[in-house]
């Protein structure tokens, strides 16, 4: 399910999704069309543009919240020209299951985009690094200052919704090293341990003041 008003980009997205083995059930050009299509097709995941006609404001965010409320089984991946942690906060305050919020330009890195898409479709979380960076800016920084540079990197990736393996791949370190960093981060930030990926993201986001 794709909702995106730019036809060029929509065609491109469809191609990407089909290449990755997804089946595109419907396409929509605006928010009412999106909700209608979700009602009809009950897709696993909806890829939604934030700015859509007629208002070109935050229609996509509101539509995403509506989808989360009515059909909680449908995961939502929001695409936006600019990322804004307020929108993310709105989305994540409901819950973090099956939520993604990425900069539009991330779709250009096809593999990474597909990976995030899979994660969200499977009930995980994918947050744009810029959203996480914005969250770090707003946070009273005292406990964050105790983190080492490496731990900050790991925290950022963790908040983006990546698994230990994902973080290890990104930073080119071993998984056990990542696990060690995470333990130390959770201890320093006084966050409860949790096993599932999205619970861990929730904890981090909680600390950052979103969820």
């Amino acid at each position, binding site marked *: 399910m794709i909702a995106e008003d730019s036809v*060029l*980009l929509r065609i491109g997205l469809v191609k990407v999704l089909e290449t990755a083995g997804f089946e595109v059930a419907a396409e929509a050009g605006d928010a009412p069309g999106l909700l209608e299509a979700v009602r009809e097709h009950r897709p696993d995941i909806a890829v939604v543009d934030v*700015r859509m006609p007629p208002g*070109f404001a935050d229609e996509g965010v509101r539509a995403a919240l509506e989808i989360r409320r009515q059909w909680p089984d449908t995961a939502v991946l929001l695409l936006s020209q*600019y990322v804004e942690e307020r929108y993310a906060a709105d989305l994540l305050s409901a819950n973090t299951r099956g939520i993604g919020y990425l900069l539009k330009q991330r779709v250009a890195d*096809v593999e990474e985009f597909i990976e995030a898409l899979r994660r969200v479709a499977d009930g995980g979380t994918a947050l744009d690094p810029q959203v996480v960076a*914005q969250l770090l*800016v707003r946070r009273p*920084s005292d406990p964050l200052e105790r983190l080492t540079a490496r731990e900050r990197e790991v925290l950022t990736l963790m908040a983006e919704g990546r698994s230990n393996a994902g973080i290890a791949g990104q930073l080119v370190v071993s998984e056990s090293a990542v696990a060690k960093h995470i333990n130390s981060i959770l201890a320093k930030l006084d966050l409860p341990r949790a096993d599932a990926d999205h619970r861990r993201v929730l904890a981090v986001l909680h600390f950052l003041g979103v969820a």
Partner: protein
Amino acid sequence: MNIPPWLRPGLVRLRRALPRLRRDLLFAAVGVPLHALPPLLALWALTQLAGLLEGTSDAAPVLLPVALGGMVATAFTLTEGQRWRLRRLCGVDLPRLRFTQARRQFGYHFLAGPLLGVLEAALLALLLAGLAAASVFLWIWALPAEWRLANMGYATEAGYATALGLAAVAVVPPLAAQLLRLENLLLTSLLGVGRAEELARRVEDLTRSRAGAVDAADAERRRIERDLHDGAQQRLVSLALNLGLAKATLTDLPPQARQVIEEAHREAKEAIEELGSLVRGLHPAVLDELGLDAALSGLAARAPLPVRLRVEMDRRAAPAVEAVAYFVVSEALTNIAKHARATRGEVTVTLLGEILRVVIADDGVGGADPSGGSGLKGLAQRVRSVDGAFRVSSPVGGPTVMTVELPCTP
């Protein structure tokens, strides 16, 4: 007719002077009744009033308000008359008067006006007398013979009279011109717009036109942002997406072709980045939708050094003020990243009553000079465009603190 050459310049001057003289005299002649009316009216009103007070007048007490109303009406009508006279004869257009200037109108019509009227009448009388005296030899024969007999030697007297008359006629043109100048001065200063009012109006005009210019520039920035956002950026993303797709799917390409695709993909992504930062410098849509707080957190997050942000606003400020505040922070963070060699920055935005205060601090090397750098100068100009205050404290060795205060009253 042959005019001797030595006479020609004089004739030319005369031809030029005559319409002017005609105009000056006409001006004075029209002025006499216009100026005579108010004192006559006032005199009549006063006698009526006096009669009323002494009980000798049989006029009803109703007459007094009628007289006063008449005076007011006359003042206004006469002002229109004076405007007409000035416009018609001197080409000077007085602005239409407001009622608040009634005091000055009264001052003109009942004090300065009568004096001017007397001067005008005197001037016209001087002209008539001068003309009569100068032409004494022409009409003296018409006088009865007895008079001429009783005044023997009148020819000598008539000679004096002619000389005096000529002299009087000769001084009339310059006097008329002087009188016209004097009246113009009084008219424009008393019936025209005063200097203070003129200045106030001008300040009002300038404030309005500057606000208009600031708003127009803002609207233009917004339009450009939207055009880039909905047009170029989308296309670039789509291009980068397709190139990424090509890179991911066309695995059996020759290495050169692969390299070309990879290069193009990288460049498309860089172009998106560049366009993105250009748009952010202009006027990001998020500023309109979610306000300063949200827009600034995006700026702070993208700064190449850690920036701590605190925004305390219980309401939104005017769009122009928000745009300036955003621009200030954006430019300041860019400056810090470029020049300050700082390890961290701090942005504090507080809305205190009618003042939006933006403080940007860094722990860099300092030495920023608002008079030198074009960046800081541009900032100061943008702040001044909404009547804001701009201060920079940047001792060599740091730290640098920039304070901007923007008035939020509309």
